């Protein structure tokens, strides 16, 4: 659908061709409609659901109750997945979405430990999908207003955090750089320091007498070493973040995970995360660093 950010989405013809391309290769296409429309704009979201159904998408990924309700009533055969933006972290929350809107899968927010994911897999009324690789969103998805506090545009309403139109880079005489989001200083970098994309949660700030990455370092989530546990817990799918990524990233990251998964299925008991997989993934990570994030109890 056409949002306020042209270029981020396919147009209708590209979408049609993309779906055909994937489906002739026995791949499924899920369409994310995971923003929260206000009353006046609801018809646009309904139209997007209609379009997903008419184009033969295999599922929509949505978070908002009115959108899920519309899809359930008008396109009962179109599978509905609860988006990460729906912020469901418990069995009762998942049951609500299942009983109310007949979701058939849910994507979990990136806030649970692997033990909590395992337990939820036992109790959830639907199969679960978890984030495996990509940016580490440290806040509960669907519950973060840091971007909108600074810019007025939120992931919930605009589908994007820290919109590029609000980002300003400043070059200093010594070769260093500062980056501002809607005029708020998010970070300042030495000439030799790599600079990541400026989101509020990954900037450096002063707390007490220290200046540091007070919320999180610029690092990516990588759960490769947890693959056996996630598999035996019964996780239905691993999500690799691919939005707005280049061809090289997508090719390399998906190849790596595909190989890791295939090797796991061939011989689960002998599986180990290979160093070459990890280094391939690290090359595509923010700041070339990865973390298990909240999956790991010690991430604090």
């Amino acid at each position, binding site marked *: 659908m056409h949002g306020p950010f042209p270029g981020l989405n396919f147009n209708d013809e590209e979408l049609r061709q993309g779906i055909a391309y994937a489906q002739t290769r026995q791949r499924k296409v899920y369409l994310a409609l995971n923003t*929260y429309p206000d009353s006046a704009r609801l018809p646009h979201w309904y139209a997007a659901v209609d379009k997903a159904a008419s184009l033969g998408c295999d599922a929509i990924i949505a978070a*908002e109750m*009115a959108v899920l309700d519309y899809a359930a009533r008008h396109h009962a055969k179109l599978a509905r997945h609860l988006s990460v933006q729906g912020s469901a972290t*418990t069995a009762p929350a998942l049951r609500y979405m299942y009983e109310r809107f007949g979701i058939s899968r849910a994507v979990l927010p990136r806030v649970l430990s692997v033990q*909590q994911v395992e337990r939820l897999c036992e109790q959830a009324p639907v199969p679960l999908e978890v984030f495996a690789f990509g940016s580490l969103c440290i806040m*509960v998805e669907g*519950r973060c207003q840091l971007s909108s*506090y600074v810019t007025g545009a939120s992931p919930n309403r605009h589908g994007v955090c820290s919109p590029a139109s609000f980002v300003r880079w400043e070059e200093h005489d010594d070769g260093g750089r500062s980056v501002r989001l809607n005029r*708020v200083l998010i970070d300042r970098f030495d000439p030799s320091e790599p600079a990541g994309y400026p989101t509020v949660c990954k900037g450096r700030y002063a*707390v007490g007498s220290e200046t540091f990455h007070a919320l999180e370092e610029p690092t990516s989530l990588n759960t490769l070493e947890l693959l056996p546990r996630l598999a035996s817990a019964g996780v239905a799918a691993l999500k690799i973040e691919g939005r707005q990524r280049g061809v090289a990233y997508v090719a390399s990251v998906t190849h790596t995970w595909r190989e890791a998964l295939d090797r796991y299925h061939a011989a689960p008991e002998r599986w180990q995360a290979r160093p070459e997989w990890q280094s391939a993934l690290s090359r595509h990570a923010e700041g070339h660093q990865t973390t298990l994030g909240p999956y790991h109890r010690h991430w604090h």
Partner: protein
Amino acid sequence: MKLSLGPLQYFWPRERTFAFYRQAVQWPVDIIYLGETVCSKRRELRTLDWIMLAHELAESGKQIVLSSLALIEAESELGALQRLIEQGQGWIEANDLSAVQLCRARGVPFVASPTLNVYNHRALAMLMEDGLLRWVPGVEQGAALIDELRSALLEDGGDMPEVEVIGFGRLPLSYSARCFTARALDVAKDQCGFRCIDYPDGLPLATREGRPFLRINGIQIQGEEITDLGPELPALRALGVDVLRLYPQAEGMDEIVAHFDLARRSVTPPPRIGARNGYWHGTAGMRSVDLP
């Protein structure tokens, strides 16, 4: 217009918390929200203490609402939620869908908090079928959204529930699995030592230019500015807002309540004692401060 005392977002010592609410019950507020909404490890008051306090304060004739955790990860947290809902008296403030589901299953009326994502009249109508009686719009939702939602709901033949707007306090902006207070103090979350008790109004975070920006409050991040919709009271009335929410601060809360009590009974809007809330006017939340 009714006044409410929103849930205490910070972690105060047990005696201070009891003393605060025993004073608050004398203040001219109509509704008091009680309970821990941020971190389940804050156990100066345990769930049972909050429930007993709710029963004690209910004798004052004020409406007491028990408020639930915004982020539920552990079984023990679900258990606490269950106890809140099964205490058998009064409403619940649902801070996430788990609370909505449990209230719905047991027929307990609830308030939808700012952390439940309600952006349109259809979602609101469905939650009303589930037992919603009052709606607190999310922090990023301003006058225009509420107005538009009301019109759409009425057009659909629905009735608007009570609407409660955050009138005073620091806006709750986000929640994480990480404890930012523990991180700032370089201690593990599991051994945090409950250090947020040392920051009764949260821990200030400034930009590298020294501009106050956010507040760290355990796993929650708040805006630094204390938002104040006092001067917008005439607009709130015109919009049909039923309740004005005041979030507890460590100091001078009695005077803040008195200020808003006077303001709600006056035809002229009060002077601003906090900052503008950009969200209310349809722009960035922090647009209350003068950006350089």
